[in-house]
């Protein structure tokens, strides 16, 4: 159900191997996208990233649950098709099962494609005896008219079979019963994978499925094909653009309507806070530091960022749960191929819209090391959620035309980011990362109806508040630091002013100014803080007493010499500049190479500086 706190930021690439072992350790394995993480979340109450596309879980996680006085540790493994593994995340799964660390292995299967899933079950049976087959998504199978003869399947496989619907929790207690029982009874022996030909295994899986699965009607499969005709057929690219436009329209329209009220309320609180501090005789210096430094920064961040995020996240998550993302990869694969990259890069790019660090780790789903590096280095060319709200506020302030025109411009900006991803990938595969394109094999999952209520609750509470929390956590110290920098003087000018002045020449060449560049540099820790720092720079020393509406934001900017060219360059530089500190750290962890980390820093920065200078020159010539 979208990116979560534990799947982004600095947590994105943490390994799962720090397992707190309880009485029973259970490995959850299975093909990609069969609902392992959904089951895991249900069992442990944790919030792993879930969504309807193969390859979300690339690192694995562990969590505990207590059942009948037994502490059961579950390990959520990345999905794999076979024990004879290929990609790094599949190796994680295989190694864990082979190591014998798990007391019980639960192979989770997709009831709607049982035949293919049984291949992995049969392979796993060759290496471990303590195995439970969990046929998940049974509710979906029933809807599709697929009937599974559980008793017969148990007999054919010689292993316990449980049917579950992890989204609603149906059958989960049966599974827990079987786990406890399996631990007590079966002997734990791991045997090496026998040399049985995969062909034999596949054919045996087909025979078993033939005997145990009945198809009653195919209406829903037909339905999927009809949706595919629209989403992957001739109109696919138009549909993609319209969908982006629609999402942005809703985001901007919604954000506009609540942002003003929110900041008004928060600024009222500032007055109270100020008065309260005066009442208790706080020293003036401290009071101003807290109110005009820390608190004001907080208000900016909350009122500018919260509304667009609270609307954008759920909308994006709904698309993800629906199963649209793999279709985007399917549609764009040929473009990526022409650029010497892999179509799965579309998936990591989409994750990048949420968090670039998560996108970088997600690149593990790409088998070829060369193509994986391309995906990692180009990931920050699409704006993450730390940059979205800032982009939205700059666009809504400077682009007139109600809600529609800003949405068009934002869609254009995102499209520019995507186009730049292609160009940069092509550049990399012609220069630093030469090589042949590898193959592209991707499963397109069935469309699933998103659980809209749950999506909204989860995205707001888990995702939005988390990102906001991080923004606030970095914004308050930044606000305090900035207030100090702006109020400590060397001679006549403040430290902050000195810093800005030194950047002024470069800023002017790029059609920006020193304050903006200073804000970008200080915002290295988190992109969320760039706009607030910039505003603090502009209004330092002055006191704004009432709420910050978008009109006032515009006034502040225009007063400081902004025009449409500044706004355009600001948008460009927001799209293309160095990745944030967390992303850089993640890139280093994932590539273990200072060279590629440096290139990931340089590439977007050079692109951004170059485009800004070009735009500025062009506008000066025309003017």
């Amino acid at each position, binding site marked *: 159900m979208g990116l979560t706190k534990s799947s982004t930021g600095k947590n994105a690439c943490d390994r799962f191997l720090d397992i707190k072992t309880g009485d029973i350790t259970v490995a959850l394995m299975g093909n990609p996208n069969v609902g392992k993480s959904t089951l895991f979340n249900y069992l442990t109450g944790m919030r792993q990233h879930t969504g309807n596309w193969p390859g979300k879980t690339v690192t694995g996680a562990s969590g505990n649950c207590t059942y009948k006085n037994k502490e059961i540790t579950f390990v959520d493994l990345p999905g794999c*098709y*076979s024990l*004879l593994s*290929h990609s790094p995340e599949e190796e994680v799964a295989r190694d864990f099962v082979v190591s014998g660390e798990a007391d019980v292995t639960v192979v989770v299967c*997709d009831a*709607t*494609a*049982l*035949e*293919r899933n049984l*291949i992995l079950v049969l392979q796993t049976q060759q290496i471990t005896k303590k195995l439970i087959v969990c046929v998940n998504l049974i509710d979906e199978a029933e809807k599709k008219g697929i009937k599974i003869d559980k008793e017969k399947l148990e007999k054919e496989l010689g292993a316990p079979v449980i049917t579950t619907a992890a989204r609603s929790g149906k059958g989960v207690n049966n599974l827990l019963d079987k786990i406890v029982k399996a631990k007590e009874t079966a002997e734990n022996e791991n045997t090496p994978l026998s040399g049985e030909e*995969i*062909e034999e295994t*596949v*054919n045996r*899986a*087909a025979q078993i*499925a033939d005997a145990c699965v009945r198809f009653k009607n195919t209406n829903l499969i037909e339905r*999927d*094909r009809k949706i*595919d*005709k629209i989403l*992957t*057929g*001739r109109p*696919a*690219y138009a549909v993609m653009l319209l969908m982006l436009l629609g999402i942005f329209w809703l985001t901007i329209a919604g954000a506009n309507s609540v942002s003003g009220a929110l900041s008004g309320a928060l600024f009222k609180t500032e007055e109270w806070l100020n008065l309260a501090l005066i009442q208790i005789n706080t020293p003036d210096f401290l009071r101003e530091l807290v109110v005009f430094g820390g608190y004001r920064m907080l208000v900016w961040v909350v009122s500018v960022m919260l509304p667009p995020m609270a609307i954008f996240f759920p909308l994006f998550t709904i698309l993800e749960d629906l199963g649209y993302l793999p279709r985007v990869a*399917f*549609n764009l*694969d*040929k*473009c990526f*191929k022409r650029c010497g990259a892999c*179509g799965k890069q579309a998936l990591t790019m989409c994750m990048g819209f949420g968090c670039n660090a998560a996108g970088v780790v997600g690149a593990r789903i790409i088998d070829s090391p060369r193509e994986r590096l391309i995906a990692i280095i180009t990931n920050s060319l699409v704006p993450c959620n730390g940059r979205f709200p800032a982009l939205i506020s700059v666009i809504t302030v400077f682009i007139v035309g109600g809600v529609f025109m800003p949405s068009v411009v934002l869609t254009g900006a995102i499209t520019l980011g995507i186009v730049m991803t292609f160009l940069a990938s092509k550049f990399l595969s012609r220069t630093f990362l030469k090589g042949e394109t590898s*193959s*592209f*094999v*991707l*499963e*397109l*999952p*069935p469309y699933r109806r998103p659980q809209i209520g749950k999506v909204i609750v989860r995205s707001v509470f888990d995702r939005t508040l988390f990102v906001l929390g991080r923004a606030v956590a970095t914004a308050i110290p930044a606000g305090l630091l900035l207030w100090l920098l702006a109020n400590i003087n060397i001679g006549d000018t403040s430290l902050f002013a000195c810093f800005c002045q030194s950047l002024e020449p470069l800023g002017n060449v790029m059609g920006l100014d020193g304050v903006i560049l200073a804000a970008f540099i200080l915002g290295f820790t988190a992109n969320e803080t760039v706009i607030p720092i910039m505003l603090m720079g502009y209004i330092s020393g002055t006191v704004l007493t009432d709420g910050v509406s978008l009109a006032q934001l515009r006034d502040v900017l225009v007063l400081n010499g902004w025009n449409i060219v500044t706004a355009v360059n600001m948008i460009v530089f927001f799209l293309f500049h160095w990745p944030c500190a967390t992303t850089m750290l993640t890139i280093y962890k994932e590539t273990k190479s200072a060279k590629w980390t440096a290139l990931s820093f340089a590439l977007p920065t050079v692109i951004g500086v170059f485009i800004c200078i070009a735009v500025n020159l062009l506008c000066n010539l025309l003017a």
Partner: protein
Amino acid sequence: MRRLSELAVDESGVISYIDTKNRLRRRLYDLGLVPGTKVFCVAKSPLGDPKAFLVRGAVISLRCEDSEDIILE
């Protein structure tokens, strides 16, 4: 001799053999694409490549340069 890549949308065929020895063959076998498997072409990307095939209840997308190594009966 017909190749999987030549299958048009809504056409079906049966795999005869896979004419490649590299890593991809393993991957295809793991996905259940072995000789004798029925395949049905369900979709084609807007640029014609890749195509998506229904194999053993799941939809798998393959680039044409890969699927042309899969020979149908």
